[in-house]
């Protein structure tokens, strides 16, 4: 007999989640339900998280940003665009209004698709996920939590509660390549977060490896070349940044694109994203 729990509080959700080993968590449903519809998943016991108000809240402080796992893509677009323009830009590229109203940040992490559009931003921003489970709370970097294609280190009974990241001041960009401007699963994507206080460019790529890829060597190259007062950089440095970013990718050829196209796309969108972050390229 199939069973469902409809908790309203986080405590209720966590206690329900850890009750039996075959318990599955349901957030926005935009991946989960598709798998059920296609016969790839036959749920027996589901905890629906949609009613848990504690998960759908966010806080932008002076030094830290906290985003509840139930924050929807629509919330990110409509409510977080001023403080997290890179995340809002990524959310804007997710699916359609119907999908953005349902899909959540926590669901994006737990599903761990290589094409998860919020993930490059979270990895670029060094976001840390807070998980609550039968053994209490723990924190894990989103980059560490996602271990492979649709694989995570989230344990049985653990609920993603929120993500925390530093508050960054400076331009942010998210660019994505696909066949349309809407309803598209990324062929390649890139998130850039410019931290004008610490003089750092941070970046990560999506859809070009099993997991989101941080572009650390490219970051090191460009950090030294930017005039941080004027926020300008030489054109050759932007090109070197983009080339190093493309080297960080390990794309495959599949039904959506080829490895060669993806690598080239990374180079193009990383250069474009950086140029948009800078006031001028000399």
């Amino acid at each position, binding site marked *: 007999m*199939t069973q*469902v*729990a*409809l*908790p309203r509080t986080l405590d209720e959700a966590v206690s329900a989640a850890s009750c039996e080993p075959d318990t599955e968590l349901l957030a926005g449903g935009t991946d989960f339900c*598709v798998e059920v519809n296609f016969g790839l998943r036959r749920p027996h016991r589901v905890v629906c998280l*949609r009613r848990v108000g504690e998960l759908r809240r966010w806080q932008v402080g002076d030094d830290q940003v906290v985003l509840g796992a139930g924050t929807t893509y629509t919330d990110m677009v409509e409510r977080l665009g001023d403080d997290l323009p890179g995340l809002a830009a990524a959310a804007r590229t997710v699916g359609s*209004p119907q*999908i953005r*109203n349902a899909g959540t940040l926590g669901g994006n992490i737990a599903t761990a698709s290589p094409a998860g559009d919020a993930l490059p931003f979270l990895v670029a921003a060094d976001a840390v996920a807070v998980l609550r489970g039968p053994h209490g709370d723990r924190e894990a970097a989103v980059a560490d939590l996602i271990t492979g294609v649709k694989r995570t280190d989230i344990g049985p009974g653990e609920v993603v509660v929120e993500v925390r990241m530093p508050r960054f001041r400076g331009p942010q960009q998210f660019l994505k390549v696909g066949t349309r401007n809407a309803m598209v699963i990324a062929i390649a994507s890139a998130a850039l977060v410019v931290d004008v206080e610490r003089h750092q460019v941070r970046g990560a790529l999506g859809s070009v490896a099993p997991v989101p890829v941080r572009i650390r060597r490219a970051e090191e190259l460009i950090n030294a070349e930017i005039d941080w007062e004027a926020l300008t950089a030489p054109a050759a440095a932007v090109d070197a940044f983009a080339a190093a970013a493309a080297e960080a990718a390990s794309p495959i050829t599949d039904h959506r694109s080829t490895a060669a196209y993806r690598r080239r796309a990374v180079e193009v969108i990383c250069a474009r994203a950086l140029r948009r972050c800078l006031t001028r390229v000399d």
Partner: protein
Amino acid sequence: MSTETAGEMVAFEPVEGYQLTVNGTGMVVEEAWLGESLLYVLRERLGLPGSKNACEQGECGSCSVLLDGAVVCSCCVLAVDAVGSDVRTVEGLTASGEVADIQDALVAAGGVQCGFCTPGFVVAIYDLLRRSPAAGDLEVREALSGNLCRCTGYGRILEAVRQVEERRALGNG
């Protein structure tokens, strides 16, 4: 189905029978399975076939409904997860049939050919114009980007939205 709360515990309930509130009316779903989508339950169990079933993966928008006021694909909602929520389908967006102007405009502008996608478009257009009565072309395109139409090429549908906006503006003027 009731969800009993005792302290911090929340009870699992068997998914046998439960009640949904659809278009303002309580409707009982019996002998259900957990994995049934809201779309399936609306069409096959509750006699509301307006929401159409095409892709079953949130790509086409033909199953669009309002769930607590937000437009979603009903194929991507577990029906039992809609317990306690306000579900509005194309059959009952308003009690008075106020959306007739959207439907009239779609017909008049040639925005209906085979008609399969039309209910989903009606729900999406209704949602858009409620939020943004004077939406411009880009906003309309964005709002309808999750609804696929394989007949019209969209031009006639966009024209229908423009007509509804104009007529409502005149009517309210």
